């Protein structure tokens, strides 16, 4: 799907946060020894979601190019797989989480760039979350 409007972009960001929250909650359930770590990541995702929605609602304006400035963003580029199969072990799950973080980070970086000229504060929040996602990858790698 081609994301073209600010509303679509924000909804998709929320969807990514929701999906990755679910993923980490599943990991917490499956891998008891890292339960707290995974739950803290899920909690952080929930905070990200609220932050994104609040920031967008605070700066959105009907007079700016919210409907026409996101050309070139396709959800296919950021699809994430969150389901864990029975056979996947801890290491597989962590590899999957790294892939998820990579995709989500890429989404935030690209979207921040496209919204820079007209959605005050939203790009800053996207960049902030992208940076957090980058730091998170290091954290996940250390668990491998």
């Amino acid at each position: 799907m081609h994301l073209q409007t600010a509303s679509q972009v924000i909804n998709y960001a929320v969807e990514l946060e929701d999906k990755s929250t679910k993923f980490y909650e599943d990991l917490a359930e499956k891998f008891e020894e890292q339960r707290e770590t995974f739950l803290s990541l899920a909690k952080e995702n929930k905070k990200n979601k609220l932050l994104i929605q609040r920031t967008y609602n605070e700066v959105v304006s009907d007079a700016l190019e919210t409907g026409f400035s996101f050309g070139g963003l396709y959800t296919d580029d950021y699809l994430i797989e969150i389901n864990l199969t029975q056979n996947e072990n801890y290491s597989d799950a962590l590899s999957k989480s790294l892939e998820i973080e990579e995709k989500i980070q890429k989404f935030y970086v690209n979207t921040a760039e496209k919204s820079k000229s007209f959605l005050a504060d939203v790009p800053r929040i996207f960049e902030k979350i992208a940076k957090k996602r980058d730091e998170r990858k290091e954290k996940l790698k250390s668990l491998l």
Partner: protein
Amino acid sequence: MAILEEPIKKTLLLKNYIGGEWVESKGEFHDIINPATCKTISKVPSSTKEEVNEAVKKANKAYPEWRRTPPLARVRRLFQLKELLEENFEELSRIQTMEHGKTIDESRGETRRGIENVEVAAGIPSLMMGYNLEDIATGIDEYLIRQPLGVFSCIAPFNFPFMVPLWFAPYAVATGNCVIIKPSPRDPISQVKIAELVDEADFPPGVWNIVQGGAEVAEILLEHSDIKGVCFVGSTPVAKEIYKRCGQMGKRVIAQGSAKNFILIMPDANLEKTIPALMTSFFGNTGQRCLSGANAVVVGKDDVFYKNFVEAFLSAASKIKVGYGLDDGVQMGPLQSKKAKERVLGFIEKGVSEGAKIILDGRKVKITGNYPETCFLNPTIFEEVTVDMSIAKEEIFGPVANIMRAKDLDEAIDMIHASRYGNAASIFTSNGKFAREFQYRVKCGNIGINIGIAAPMAFFPFSGMKDSFFGILHGQGKEAIRFFTESKVVIQRWW
């Protein structure tokens, strides 16, 4: 494609909000239709003369005590209202989409701009201050104080059902006046929802009132001797009439009228960045705003630049996704009503018959999703438009763009000045001299430089010139404070 949940599940029977009570009207009711789905979402009355008079009476009764309420206490009601508007942000936005047709991004943007006026008005303890000078003569001091006047009315248009009354009402009540809002009879639900929050915010009864109805209700408000001032946004003939009548009756007035806005594209414009801004300008809110671009004037003799511009403009407009505004991928919603669509169709036909070349025909309706075509049109673009054609002169209020040419900036400015309207004009350029010249010379109230919709923020006045505005002071910001207050000068000496 994600269709957001509709907040209105069953037909609402709208009431008046008079003296802090929800009062059922004895007037005739008519249906409010969601222009995208064509389903009835509410029934709105046309209030009787007695009901309107009762609203004025209650507002007038509330005034003395509200006026004596310290500004800080008045402002606390506004802070409370702001909190409630934030809490209900999404519902309020979706209601606008349901009753007006605009996209959800546009509705959220409208909600935000409305709330910003409540925020600015909350600065009244500072904004309402007067000034003074000691010793204007020996032992004599002089000072100016600002005082409220009484009851104001706001007669609102259909194109921004949530925001426009908030250009006025928060300032009116913050300065100690009472207000009666008459929403547009075409999309009155948003104002009812705001009044519900006003009620929850515990404004004293009678300070903020809503009376439903059309021109006949406006007429009563206009004529009523206890109404001290009128704020109107709508068409030029009505604005002119209201201005005249208010003048005769000694009422204060802000009367905003129609527009026909020119957008100049200079040969040095950055087309990549200009095109999305032009899409918003010409087709945002389905062209139903007084700041919309209407005439795109490509300046210069460079045929290659002209061709490139037309191609890019056409390509972007033809890709606009039209549909129900609650589908978050939709970029343009329907016209607000079938009648509004018919009016636009009439202009398109006029354009064709007057010899303009139609290069994108929005009459061939293509909608995303399964909705009746009743109120929908796709974007239309005319080329080879000249200033004498009706499509170039008259306000169409729909998604129709006219492409024109001017040999240089002087000729383009002359074209703007040939219009009877002076609401807004924009220039797209990389050249500071062109921009400065444009800003300096163009006789329009709101100027955009590389901005498609020159919409003033809440802390600036919403300006307008020529036949687009009748009055002296404007809505929003400091000018609104002056409009809603009397300047009283005191000179004192003590022996």
